[in-house]
């Protein structure tokens, strides 16, 4: 199964900063276009490896970067399925 964690942000500035922080710590993270259903804020989401999501979120919190939404989803071809918010 192709599970992933996606974070959305209030603006591209925060999305880019989040990517930099996560990658700077040696974690996998890349920006992808975000489906409009997920967020309309800035068009980008940070894709994380679910196994590393906890550390990534901790790092972002320590840097003062607050994601707008944190979701888990399953990738099926180009589609995102089973989108659920992480609390």
């Amino acid at each position, binding site marked *: 199964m192709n599970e992933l964690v996606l974070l959305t942000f209030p*603006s591209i500035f925060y999305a880019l900063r989040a990517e930099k922080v996560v990658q700077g710590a040696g974690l996998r993270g890349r920006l992808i*276009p975000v489906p409009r259903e997920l967020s309309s804020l800035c*068009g980008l989401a940070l894709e994380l490896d679910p196994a590393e999501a906890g550390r990534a979120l901790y790092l972002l919190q320590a840097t003062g970067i607050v994601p707008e939404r944190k979701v888990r989803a399953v990738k099926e071809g180009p589609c995102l399925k089973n989108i659920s918010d992480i609390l």
Partner: protein
Amino acid sequence: MIYLNNAATSWPKPETVYQAHDAYLRHLSGSVNRGAGGASLDAGRAVLETRELLAGFFNIREPEQVIFTPNATEALNLALQGLLEPGDHVVISSLEHNAVARPLHALQEKGVEYTIVNCDSRGRLNPGDVERAIGPRTRLICLTHASNVTGTILPVNEVGEIARRHHLQYLVDTAQTAGEIPVDVEAAGITLLAFTGHKGLLGPPGTGGLYIRYPDAIRPLIYGGTGSRSEHLTQPEVLPDKYESGTVNAPAIAALGAGVRFIRETGLNNIRRHTMELTARLLEGLRRLPGVTLYGPPDSGERVPVVSLNIRGLSPGEASAWLADHYDIVTRPGLHCAPLAHQTIGTLQTGTLRLSPGFFNTAAEIEAALAAIKELTEVIQGE
């Protein structure tokens, strides 16, 4: 050519600035916030990088509070027009550039008032005079960090302390100081800092910005698309989007980043030491020439590398043209967009001839300029 007009725009730029500009314009010109294509994302990363570099450079804690504008003029307009409301009062110095004086003059029509605090004939400001000009309606103190006419460095930290004590907004114009001497928003208590990219920061024209400490108090100057919250017609409140509508000049901002990196790697103190030596040499040589009147403080430590002068019997325009024609030396004559400063030093009628060395000038070039001016004074006296 001997280029002594760095106070207008610095030249040459570090090689890395040209390279960054070319690379981003050639390969990565994608619009920053419009879609997630690889190239446009790289442009976005370059803009973020420069924003973070500048935040570090000015000791700004939150990089999103660094707003990019096309130049210092628009940054100053954003600060003044975004903050001031009818009934507000502003205190400024008598050395301010027209980028401050004209917006304030125009804002008078909307009921904004301002007081000009006079500097002495060498351009020195007494902070006590600033404090005495504060009234019950004062909202803002606005100060140039250094004069682009006399070169005088103003006491920004002392005035910042006064602003803090009176709970005022404090706008500092660093067009002549960023990249020349340290600028620290925390140490000086600056709440609004305008900078330009094309002078001491060694970047290309079309770059500049404003640091906004309290964004809730500042209205945007320009409204439009930000690539965020696009379904709402209201301008986003989130930074930097609130103030950055439209496509930003990403290649130029990437190149500005290369300029700031160059300064960091060279060391601001090394840059300062070199330009101060050039300025001291220039001042010393000019002082020996009969018929030359020098303006500004005598000590190069009290000024940025900006030297204004007049030659008896010759207008600044004639002198500048002669230096260009006979010696290929680039200087700038006139009022330098700062009539208040010329009023302060008594040169409003004539203007001055301005020589402004930069980091890439050499002592030999200063000597050549001195020899040329010496010859010019002899030509005039021979007539």
